[in-house]
């Protein structure tokens, strides 16, 4: 009798431990999905292992790689103490002349000089214009930088998970101003600001679009409030802001207006969130949705012109996480399942770029979440397998790919 009871006691005691250490289905570490940028024939991208790499698009060779210092974080599970964690990168690199700017999940903004990095000099080389800026945590849970950085002529604008927007001097990284906390409830500012005239517009998870002075960061009274939070970064075309919401609608808001100009769909909401920022071209809004569809809408009215459903290899709809891009007169859409489509923006007719090894498989054998970029007829994609894929739109094929995991 005694033995079974002790056994039961041990089992009961161990079950909660199992709960903590084994059932990790809900927890996902921040891995990052940095997008790509191209400048003067060099592709810049953040990697899963916390690096910023520069790859020559002509020679297909690595120009340089800079490993961002790991951060210390509390150990997870049952172990105690601190552990060293690779810095995740969500923001895409932005390039201005010979400097590459990047924001990290550990709350830093780095300005990397191309020459200094190619010579592998100690970072930061101030004489080369390099600097780093640490975002304050400011009594928040995190100071992580998730949104893309925004560059203007002389400043760089940063949205932080502490709920504030910062303006930094582009040359030295000095703080120009910080906004008030824009989202007290969630603090997470995971959306990028956008500039129109001398105003910065920021969308928040608590359903606001705030207008801030570009010079001082002070709030103007031209803010807009919605019942649901905004999932995507705003995009401005002329005097209208377009952005997606967690209530599964895409909103168009005239700057300064209290009411939306239109919201799409008109009646029943879409199948999921409009997570990716839409793009606007010649009066047409192209919006990718997590329901797997791309919608083309009249920018003035929100009237649907066409819709296209992207799929995975089993023929099921696959979410569109990264914003579409235009290459000449073609719309390029990548879905989470790894398929890349070339779409006629006028008709919505599409063609899937086939996998060169096995046509039935997705275009690339990895998920696509990072923002993609296009230059001339090439589209640059960072897959979740930590590889860079270069897709030739003319030839409708993956031209080449490059492993971003670099072994020491």
């Amino acid at each position, binding site marked *: 009798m005694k033995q079974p009871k002790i056994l039961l006691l041990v089992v009961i005691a161990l079950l909660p431990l199992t*709960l903590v250490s084994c*059932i990790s289905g809900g927890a996902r570490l921040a891995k990052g999905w940095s997008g790509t940028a191209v400048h003067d024939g060099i592709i810049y991208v953040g990697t899963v292992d916390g690096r910023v790499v520069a790859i020559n698009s002509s020679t297909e060779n690595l120009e340089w790689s800079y490993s961002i210092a790991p951060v210390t974080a509390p150990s997870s599970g*049952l172990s105690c103490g601190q552990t060293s964690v690779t810095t995740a990168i969500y923001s895409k690199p932005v390039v201005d002349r010979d400097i590459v700017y990047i924001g990290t999940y550990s709350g830093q903004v780095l300005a990397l000089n191309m020459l200094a990095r190619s010579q592998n000099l100690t970072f930061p080389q101030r004489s080369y214009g390099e600097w780093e800026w640490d975002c304050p945590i400011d009594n928040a*849970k995190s100071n992580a930088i998730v949104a893309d950085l925004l560059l203007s002529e002389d400043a760089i604008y940063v949205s932080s998970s502490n709920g504030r927007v910062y303006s930094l001097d582009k040359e030295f990284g000095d703080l120009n101003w910080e906004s008030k906390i824009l989202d007290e409830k969630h603090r997470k500012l995971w959306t990028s600001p956008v500039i129109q005239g001398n105003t910065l517009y920021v969308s928040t998870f608590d359903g606001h679009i705030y207008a801030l002075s570009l010079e001082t960061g002070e709030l103007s009274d031209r803010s807009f409030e919605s019942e649901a939070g905004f999932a995507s970064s705003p995009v401005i075309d002329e005097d209208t802001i377009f952005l997606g919401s967690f209530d599964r609608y895409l909103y168009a808001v005239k700057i300064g207006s209290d009411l939306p100009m239109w919201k799409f769909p008109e009646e029943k909401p879409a199948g999921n969130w409009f997570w990716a920022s839409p793009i606007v071209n010649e009066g047409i809004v192209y919006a990718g949705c997590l329901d797997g569809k791309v919608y083309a809408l009249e920018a003035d009215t929100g009237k649907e012109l066409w819709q296209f459903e992207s799929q995975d290899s089993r023929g099921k709809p696959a979410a569109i996480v990264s914003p579409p891009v235009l290459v000449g007169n073609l719309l390029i859409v990548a879905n989470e399942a790894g398929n890349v489509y070339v779409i006629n923006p006028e008709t919505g007719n599409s063609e899937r770029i086939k996998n060169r090894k096995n046509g039935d498989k997705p275009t690339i054998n990895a998920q696509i979440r990072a923002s993609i970029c296009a230059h001339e007829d090439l589209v640059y994609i960072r897959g979740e397998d930590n590889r860079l894929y270069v897709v030739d739109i003319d030839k409708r094929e993956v031209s080449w790919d490059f492993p971003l995991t670099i072994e020491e």
Partner: protein
Amino acid sequence: MSFLDVWYLIIGNPVLNVLIALSHLLSGEFGLAIIALTIVVRLISWPLTKRQLKSSKALQDMQPKIQELQKKYGKNQQKLQQETMKLYKEAGVNPLGCLWPMLVQFPIWIALYQAIIRALATTPENLLDLAHRLYSWDIVNQAIPLNSHFLWLDLGSSGDFILAIIVGGTMWVQQKMTQAPAVDPRQQSTSRMMLLMMPLMFGFITLMVPSGLALYWAVSNIIGIITQYFFTGGWGYLKFRSPSQSTQ
């Protein structure tokens, strides 16, 4: 369909969506949603709890008879154990019955643990993953993203000592109220160990899991104490001295 797919279809995603819907109904307070879910779970498991409470009450009523057996067979432990078990069997009582409601709740705990992490979406990956798990109910989508603050707690973070003490303390009280004192001295040490070990273990684990899950445990324990108090008409074994103590 894998086991995980079935798990999320039947338990994981329903718990997640109900929790978020409750949060929207309760002014966006995720903490209140957890409390409401706890009450719902306790209501659903009421038949089991009722059975356990009846068993507990029966055990309490049997104590004089057990003490008689203690006096009668005090020197023959094997016989004492046999007779005690016979008495339990005749009364349809299981001294470890109080553990079953806890075991039955394990899938709920796991689902809740996952739901809290998913719903509060501390990383962009979590938030994106959440999009794929939400039902198309307006009430759910309008609640996103959730506010993780409740009272002094950040429901998505771990390491709150006050909550750990509350969880451990309430669990000890609840167990003490329901756990019948063992007759056999060897069983007594096991019972004592169990009585201390579980609250300590849960208090310790509270420091490592999101506070939202610990909030569920604390509220569940408090509801358990209240129902136990009113059902059995008092504090049960919390004020009861074990037979060995009373014979000393």
